[in-house]
């Protein structure tokens, strides 16, 4: 069942020449992490804010959990959707615990339940429980963003809307937060709509990406499909589809072994310990880096329990890339049509 | 020409110019070059009389500087002693009671003699010829109040004071000829309230509005008649006679003896009727006091033109 269904949604602000969002339609599956990606002014934030009715659509329909968003009171709708923004917007006059407790209190939870939940959330986002009594100004930017995340998750909503939450964080912390978010998502499997203009971030986090330009959806697909089959020059340039290393980063070692099909190449080990091993969960770009460092033609793939699953070589990588090119139909002529056709773009996953 | 010669010439020219200016200013009119500073206290009658003094002096050829509305008696007194002013109009009994802090005297001639000799002795100030009109302190009420509380005299008022709200100048509470003196002579006189309302029209407005019941008046105030007020009878004659006269610094008078001639010429013309009429023009008709003063002197033929 689709958690979010958007039909012909349009937002025309008064005194603006063209609509900010122009007849957009798409569906988001339950538990999917969908990233809205595009340059400034493409309408991604406006679209996001129509989901929780911070902006009311000029026309079109939104179904949230199968229910028309307009049939609910706007504040009731928002209390069921987690919302996290770039500047965090933590309430400076409230301690962390009160910040996190806001929505549960709006929903009338009892205090013991709220207390337990606060502890649970702080553990989840990796903050010490002692932080409950602190004020936002006493926390670093990264810590504040974690609280923002905890606050959005507080009432355990099925859907989360996140508007460039890591945009104001330094690069080092950002990467860590992205990883942690991915980890949390693996655990909780929320339906997340995440806005960003950072392509790297989108490719790392998304199950699927909606690429937007000038208020319309240009392509809606998995990261790998977008890279291997960009719809047009705009998408190709935006995502660096020509960047082979980028492609490699989107494929895991495990998937590569599966795609190769055969399991030869169990490297001959002369009894000595191999210089390095590859983990099945690593992506191929990191694997390439390891291969180069090891200086050998191939490396064994070993899972956490120590069992050897196979071996991967330079040749394998090259062959794989050539394969995806062929599969992707990269040599197809560039389409000039930008609108999403009426049927949903549901491609096979990589 | 070298700059040295230029500046030298210029310097000498400047010195000559300054000397000339000094000499010229030294011979001016029939008086010393310094202007006579005439002051006045803080109500209309003082402004009018003070202005008349100033005009008389100018007519005599003096240069005059005016400092109207100095404040109450103590302020004017301090100013003249310090030399900020040279003369101002003062009331004989005010000098006696408030400045010299002596007991009241009934005979006006004796009041004058006393204040004159004491002022000369203590302050190096003197008194010129006083005018005939009597402006004493009074207590007035509306006819309605008089009827309601049955008061006609100060004795009546002394008894009923606790039920009534008084309003008057700020110093009325402290001056010997204020509430304290009245209490001493009549007993009683502990008002329900004593509001400070200055020496201007405000106290009359307050009475009209009903904010106070009894107003402290000067008996030549124009608004007594126009507001149809009843001035109560001073049955124990607490209030003496107050005649206005110029109080002058002796040193100023010595350097400019013509001051006395000029002001004494004016003195006898200010009678009760005259002053009442002048007060009315300023307080009721709203004319400028300087205009009223000049008009009177003109009509009396005192100004030579």
């Amino acid at each position, binding site marked *: 069942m689709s958690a979010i269904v958007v039909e012909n949604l349009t937002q025309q602000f008064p005194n603006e020449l063209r609509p900010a969002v122009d007849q957009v339609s798409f569906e988001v599956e339950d538990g999917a992490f969908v990233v809205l990606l595009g340059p400034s002014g493409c309408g991604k934030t406006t679209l996001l804010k129509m989901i929780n009715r911070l902006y009311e659509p000029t026309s079109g329909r939104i179904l949230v959990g199968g229910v028309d968003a307009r049939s609910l009171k706007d504040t009731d709708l928002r209390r069921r959707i987690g919302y996290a923004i770039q500047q965090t917007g933590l309430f400076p006059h409230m301690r962390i615990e009160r910040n996190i407790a806001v929505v549960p209190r709006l929903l009338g939870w009892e205090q013991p339940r709220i207390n337990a939940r606060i502890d649970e959330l702080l553990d989840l986002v990796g903050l010490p429980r002692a932080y409950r009594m602190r004020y936002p100004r006493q926390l670093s930017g990264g810590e504040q963003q974690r609280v923002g995340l905890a606050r959005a998750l507080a009432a355990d909503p099925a859907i989360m809307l996140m508007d460039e939450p890591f945009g104001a964080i330094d690069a080092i912390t950002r990467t860590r937060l992205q990883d942690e978010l991915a980890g949390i998502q693996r655990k909780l499997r929320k339906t997340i709509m995440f806005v960003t203009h950072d392509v790297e971030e989108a490719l790392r986090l998304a199950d699927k990406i909606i690429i937007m330009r000038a208020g319309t959806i240009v392509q809606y697909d998995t990261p790998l499909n977008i890279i291997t089959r960009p719809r047009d020059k705009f998408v190709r340039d935006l995502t660096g589809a020509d960047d082979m290393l980028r492609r490699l980063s989107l494929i895991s070692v495990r998937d590569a072994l599966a795609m190769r099909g055969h399991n030869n190449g169990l490297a001959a080990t002369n009894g000595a310990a191999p210089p390095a091993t590859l983990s099945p969960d690593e992506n191929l770009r990191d694997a390439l880096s390891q291969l180069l460092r090891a200086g050998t033609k191939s490396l064994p793939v070993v899972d956490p329990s120590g069992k050897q699953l196979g071996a991967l070589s330079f040749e394998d990588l090259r062959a794989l890339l050539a394969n995806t090119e062929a599969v992707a139909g990269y040599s197809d002529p560039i389409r000039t049509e930008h609108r999403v056709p009426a049927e949903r773009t549901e491609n096979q996953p990589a | 020409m070298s700059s040295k010669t230029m500046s030298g010439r210029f310097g000498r020219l400047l010195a000559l110019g300054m000397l000339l200016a000094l000499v010229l200013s030294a011979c001016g009119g029939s008086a010393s070059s310094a202007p006579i500073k005439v002051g006045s206290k803080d109500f209309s009658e003082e402004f009018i009389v003070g202005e008349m003094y100033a005009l008389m002096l100018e007519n005599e050829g003096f240069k005059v500087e005016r400092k109207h509305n100095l404040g*109450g008696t*103590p302020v004017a007194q301090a100013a003249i002693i310090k030399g900020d002013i040279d003369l101002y109009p003062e009331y004989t009994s005010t000098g006696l009671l408030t400045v010299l802090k002596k007991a009241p005297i009934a005979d006006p001639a004796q009041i004058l003699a006393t204040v004159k000799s004491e002022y000369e002795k203590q302050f190096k100030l003197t008194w010129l010829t006083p005018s005939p009109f009597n402006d004493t302190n009074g207590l007035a009420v509306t006819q309605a109040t008089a009827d309601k509380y049955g008061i006609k005299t100060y004795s009546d008022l002394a008894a009923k004071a606790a039920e009534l709200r008084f309003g008057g100048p700020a110093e009325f509470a402290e001056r010997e000829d204020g509430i304290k003196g009245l209490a001493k002579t009549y007993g009683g006189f502990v008002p329900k309230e004593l509001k400070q309302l200055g020496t201007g029209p405000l106290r009359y407005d307050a009475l009209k509005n009903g904010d106070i019941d009894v107003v402290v008046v000067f008996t030549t105030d124009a608004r007594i008649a126009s507001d149809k007020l009843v001035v109560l009878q001073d049955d124990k004659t607490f209030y003496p006679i107050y005649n206005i006269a110029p109080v002058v610094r002796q040193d100023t008078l010595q350097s400019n003896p013509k001051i006395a001639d000029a002001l004494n010429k004016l003195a006898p013309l200010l009678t009760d009727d005259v002053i009442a009429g002048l007060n009315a023009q300023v307080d009721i008709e709203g004319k400028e006091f300087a205009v009223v003063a000049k008009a009177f002197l003109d009509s009396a033929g005192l100004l030579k033109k």
Partner: protein
Amino acid sequence: MKLLVESYQYFLENQARFWQALGQHLTLSMTALAISMLVGVPLGIWISRRARIAELVINGFGALRLVPSLAILFLALPYLGTGFRPALFALTVLAFPPVLINTYAGIHNVDRAVVEAARGMGMEPNQVLRQIELPIAFPAMIAGIRTAAVEVIASATLAAFIGGGGLGDFITRGFALYEPRIMLVGALPVALLALVSEAALASLQRRFDVVSA
């Protein structure tokens, strides 16, 4: 020093009148402050939502601040008579702009992100106002009241000019009689009152200031 002793003596001799004057002074000041808060705070909140009206109102009252209180006092006399009423009017006019302008600024300066987060989380508009905007704006509002309080306590001495009583009576009487010791009996308590209010409200403001570290 001798002056202070004389002042104290005068105070001792006139205690009844002093306490009465003090009472009048405080009544006048507190009433003016109360009215300005009762009207100024809600108005400040109201205009914080309406940018164009806000500009008009703020500029208007900003200009009003330039008119000397004494002038307003005398202008009010023909309409309000003498005594307590015109004094209250003039002092309320004095107190109003800082309260209004600071309330407006306090709410206006609340971080937009904070308000957006509050709305996005599902707070009703009046919940956003009461739980988020007002508490955050509170120190600014206190600052406005603090300014108003000090100005009002000092300016309440003007009431003495029009029969409104208060500690200003001692000042005017001292001036009329040319007796500084009497003036001090009025002036010193006024200064003290002003200082105490300033200190008290400043500490209150500090206590609630959670935004700046």
